[in-house]
């Protein structure tokens, strides 16, 4: 076990865990931010997507050792009032079914829009293909992103 220090949603946090612990489990079990979801543990489904120093990354595939000292944003910290344009667009398009993947989808999309504020449909598809929605809400996720980008 060792101490690691990181900033999560603007707050400085110190955790005492094994260095190989994935950031995902530090967020969920040590810090109690359960909005970031576990889906596969091998960086294939994107349910655990967070922003690390502003870049979308799969938190299951980053150890706390690698995340030490970094600035992390999770779905809980995307917008203090839950009013990020993507969150609003998700509501307007009634996107979710089971909803489990949606936090990861929103975090991935938020990073995309930050980098490319008006992506084409093909750019949205290329970027978002990192994230699985088992319910198949892809049509709505795409529309919600394109709406928010307008």
């Amino acid at each position, binding site marked *: 076990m060792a101490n690691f220090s990181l900033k999560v949603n603007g707050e400085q946090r110190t955790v005492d865990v094994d260095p190989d612990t994935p950031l995902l489990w530090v967020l969920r079990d040590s810090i109690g931010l359960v909005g970031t979801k576990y889906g*596969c543990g091998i960086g294939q489904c994107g349910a655990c997507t967070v922003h690390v120093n502003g870049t979308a990354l799969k938190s299951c595939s980053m150890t706390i050792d690698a995340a030490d000292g970094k600035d992390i944003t999770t*779905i809980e910290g995307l917008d203090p009032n*839950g009013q990020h344009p993507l969150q609003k667009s998700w509501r307007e398009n009634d996107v979710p079914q089971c909803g489990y993947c949606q936090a990861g989808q929103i975090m991935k999309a938020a990073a995309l829009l930050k980098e490319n504020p008006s992506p084409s449909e093909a750019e949205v598809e290329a970027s978002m293909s990192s994230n699985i929605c088992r319910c198949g809400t892809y049509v709505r996720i795409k529309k919600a992103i394109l709406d928010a980008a307008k």
Partner: protein
Amino acid sequence: MTHNNDIKRRSFLKLTAAASGGLVLGFNLMAGCNAPVEKIVQKALPENWFNINTFLKIGENGLVSIFSPNPEIGQNIKTSMPMIVAEELDTAWEDVIVEQAPLTADFDRQVAGGSQSIRHGWDSLRQAGASARNMLMKAAGKQWNLPIEKLKTEAGFVINEKGEKLSYGELAEAAGGVSVPEKVEFKDPENYKIIGHSKPNVDMNVIVEGKSSYGLDTKREGMVYAVAVRAPAFGMTLTSYDDSKAKTVAGVIDVVKFDEHKVAVVANSTWAAMKGAKAINAEWKGGSGLEDSKDHERKLLDLLNKRSKEPARNDGNFDKAFASADQTLERTYSAPFLPHNCLEPMNFFADVKGDRAECHGPIQTPQWTQSRIADKIGIPKENVSIGMTRMGGGFGRRLYGDFAEEAAQISQKVEKPVQLVFSREDDMTAGTYRPASKYKMKAGIKDGKIVAYHLTEACINGNMYGLIPNFFPAGAIPNLRIDLNNFESNITTGAWRAPYTNFLAFAEQSFFDELGEMLGKDPVDLRLELFEIAKNNPEEGREYSPERSIAVTKLVAEKSNWGKAGDGVYQGLSVYYSHNTHVAEVADVVLVDGLPVVKKVTCAVHCGIVVNPLAAQNQVEGGIIDGIGHAMYGDLTFENGVPSVKNFDNYKLIRMNQAPEVDVHFVKSAESPTGLGEPSLPPAGGAVANAIFKATGVRLYKQPFRLEEELG
């Protein structure tokens, strides 16, 4: 409309019991089991709630709290079931909050499965709303000294002929004391203000703001995390295990053997439990029970040549009609095993203390699971509570409470509150899979008509068509025979979204497309001709409706521009009835670098009244994309009892860049609603396969499609 933050606070409200005479109501807030209340509402939480009946309570300020009785797996019933209650209550939707009901005998069929929640709940949900409305009117009538015939209601108020109003909030306490009506009138669908008007998901904010609500999000004082080590192959049993290495993993608290052949590693974090489980050194023995997909393949093919002792259906004389046919067609279709792959892996919370167990988590069958847990750990059923969390998908996997039984056993052993977590690998390899199956279909054509049809099913662990022998083409073909064969396997199998038809529909609709080609008939015309025959043949025991089938076929033809889609667009049709709902789909395929790509699916649905249109459309879109994804990519085989896939690096699920546009249309109807969680899935594979044939001239007989191999 404003979002009132007061609503967000976790409420432990003072419950004011309704005076005697009201229904008996065990309102049990079950702290910690219910997701936070999240919905756009106009009113703050009231000081007092007045129980009106099992489904609803009303606050003194007119806020209405409605229980959603069934588990939510993404099928939207937590929104759409309360909508039905609110409609008949005649309150404003903005004055409604929704809570997940606890498991209690007060509710009938607290199950998520078979696309039955809305269909089955239709009468009881309307009854709950309408009888509460009646009681509120009686209470107002008493105050005004008027009979209820002189009163009307509107958006949470009872109104008399002078235009005076009393709010439901003002009447709630008195309404609890009036007699429950024996019979109530339901609204005319023409007058619906909530049903048929899209309402956003009541858990929308929970989802988009990442708040705790799923089983895996459970955190409790003193809770430990458990990960289980199970046999690596079906047919293996545990001989011994060494936990010395696992116990050195930081955070590991305990290692216990449970359920005869499983080992649980219990730790203070999920990661430590996962690491500990990997460090268990277990010895397993197999013997002769280790199965192989190659053997399954041979056995299934053999079974296709056998006839069952009792055919599931036998109309006319197939053999005679087939022998005298002008033309015949025989085709075999093959399906692999499929894992469910809910994105939230299986998990459950259990706290067993003495002869009591408090359990909760994502479960489609809380009632059944309650009994199973009680039996498994040897305590009375009444002492097992089951709370329902929101579920990160179900697809049939969460019908089976094996994971809940496991959690309870581990908690009993370690005497702690336990959250059992499946890794993705555990989830994919300890499944209750859609069984592999094969269908052989034979048909005879005489004088330009399909006169003979024979379906043989070969399946693993039970049969599927036996449950649906009266589906299409029953009644449309005079000589029809259905034979069912199966063999038993030690691989656990079960229901997978649209269990009997998810593959069968592809086989059948591909076969009819090929028959249409032989007959030189347009696929739409052939379907309409067959449905007309069925309609004019008042056959007993025919389960589908030819009229609804005709309606969806005509609507999809119109909306898809059937036959006029333009150059380079190849269309395929599939029409299928399942789970009481009729669906027709047209897939538009284009060729990109010589390979077919599904661009769009147009879909027509007849499900009676559409309760929540935007959500209904979502279900249909998702079902189609799910159906296409699994038809194209889903595959799981076994070698010596070991599943071939363990995670998403070698198990492919459809992604956004492969998902087509979906255009959904509902047949307008005032008839009672049927479900939508499953029915759009079965026809999707056939529509795509038939379009691919148009585009490439290649017929597909196996799932997954493996287009590059098939098309050379």
